[in-house]
């Protein structure tokens, strides 16, 4: 198997970074970085009223995607739609009916895996704003090489070279006081899938391999997200004392 340009092995993710509550005026904000791909997400809301065409018995979400350079075009609209549907499925929409929550995503750096990075950032920003959610979402990109092997967390050059790759979003692994061993009849929640966007043509077996690897790696991202949420509260104490 050939080496990847940045020296990682097939299953290795780029260094992850997450900081929350970085914007003063936004009700929730987060900055998520995976290597050189950096995305800033801001959440405003819930605010009263829904747009025309949205169900007033549920809370609605509005996503605005701001690219790093250039005008807003079809690619941005596609990202907005995918992000909106992903967030709608992880948030509890019956808690605040007839409200709109706006999520604004600003791309700071793009080195591949942009949509997964944005989804991770938006999820962290929603937690920061206190929007009620069923569970968190962790997202990862998986690429299929010619010989059938899978590589994770693609950079831009890898995305351009590969024939097929997919962006996958999984629920996070929850902590539970219920002993999982005894209730092993049902599948654990992290075996579900929230969103899948695939580019290029890949065989069905290749797609299922991607799912499996992606799911295994999402446990690591889920653990990182949990640790950063736990650490934040103790960091606030040292930050404010300055």
């Amino acid at each position: 198997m050939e080496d990847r340009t940045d020296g990682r092995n097939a299953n290795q993710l780029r260094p992850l970074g997450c900081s929350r509550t970085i914007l003063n005026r936004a009700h929730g904000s987060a900055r998520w970085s995976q290597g050189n791909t950096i995305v800033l997400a801001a959440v405003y809301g819930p605010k009263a009223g829904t747009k025309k065409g949205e169900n007033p018995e549920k809370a609605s979400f509005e996503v605005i995607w701001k690219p790093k350079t250039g005008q807003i075009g079809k690619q941005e609209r596609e990202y907005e739609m995918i992000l909106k549907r992903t967030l709608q499925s992880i948030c509890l929409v019956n808690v605040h009916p007839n409200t709109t929550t706006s999520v604004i995503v600003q791309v700071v750096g793009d080195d591949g895996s942009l949509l997964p990075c944005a989804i991770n950032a938006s999820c962290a920003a929603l937690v920061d704003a206190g929007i009620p959610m069923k569970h968190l979402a962790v997202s990862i990109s998986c690429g299929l090489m010619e010989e059938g092997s899978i590589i994770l967390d693609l950079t831009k050059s890898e995305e351009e070279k590969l024939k097929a790759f997919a962006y996958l979003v999984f629920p996070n692994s929850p902590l539970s006081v219920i002993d999982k061993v005894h209730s092993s009849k049902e599948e654990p929640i992290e075996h579900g899938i929230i969103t899948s966007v695939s580019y290029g043509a890949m065989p069905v077996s290749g797609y299922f391999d991607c799912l499996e690897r992606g799911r295994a790696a999402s446990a690591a991202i889920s653990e990182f997200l949990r640790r950063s949420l736990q650490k934040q509260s103790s960091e606030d104490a040292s930050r404010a004392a300055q």
Partner: protein
Amino acid sequence: MDVDTRNMTPTNLIDKIVVPGDVVLDLTKMENQTIKLGSGLRQDYDCISVMQAGKLRLSKPNKYWVESSQKRYVPSLEDTVLGIVVEHRSDNFLVDIKAPNLAFLPVLAFEGGTRRNIPKFETGTLIYARVVKANGIMNPELSCTDASGKAAEFGQLKNGYMFETSTGLARMLLSSPTCPVLEALGKKISFETAVGFNGRVWVNASSPDDVILVSNAIMRSEFLSGTQQRIMAEKLLQRLEKV
């Protein structure tokens, strides 16, 4: 505060930081018990799971809630809040209390309020009121009287300075015994303050210097411990005496 390894299920998540999706109570093991759920928790068939990230708290015997600090406010009954009048309709004022919906303040909900003496609140007036109706679906309703109908400090707040904080800091300022920063400031300066559960604080004192000093001290005290708050307040007070 680190949780055990993934293989061991934690028996108790009380006083630990939880994230949305964590299951904190198994209802099949607790029969014939009444549990009260506060903010941040919801019932998901046979278990209680977390909706908002924060620290899980238990108040014996049976009240569970998630303590978190946000910039927005979720109205709950009998909270005292600071609202800003947005509009004046025929039978109520529309008041912004940093909640997902605007709140209604009936024009008659004042001590001795009749159709003849409706208060004239313009847009932008700061009001100290109490939440009398709050369910998730309807607009919350406020009142400027206490339960027996007396005014009891509710109503318009004149002069002074209002600033916004998080709900966590507002709860700390309202805790009893008195918050250390307020106690330390109160020893040297005379000021009055109104704190709303919705994250708004109003400060009034005889001179603008005092108002600024008290406001800055409160804003800085969010993440400090009791002793740190006292030290910080004393440093600020020393600076005022020098000038």
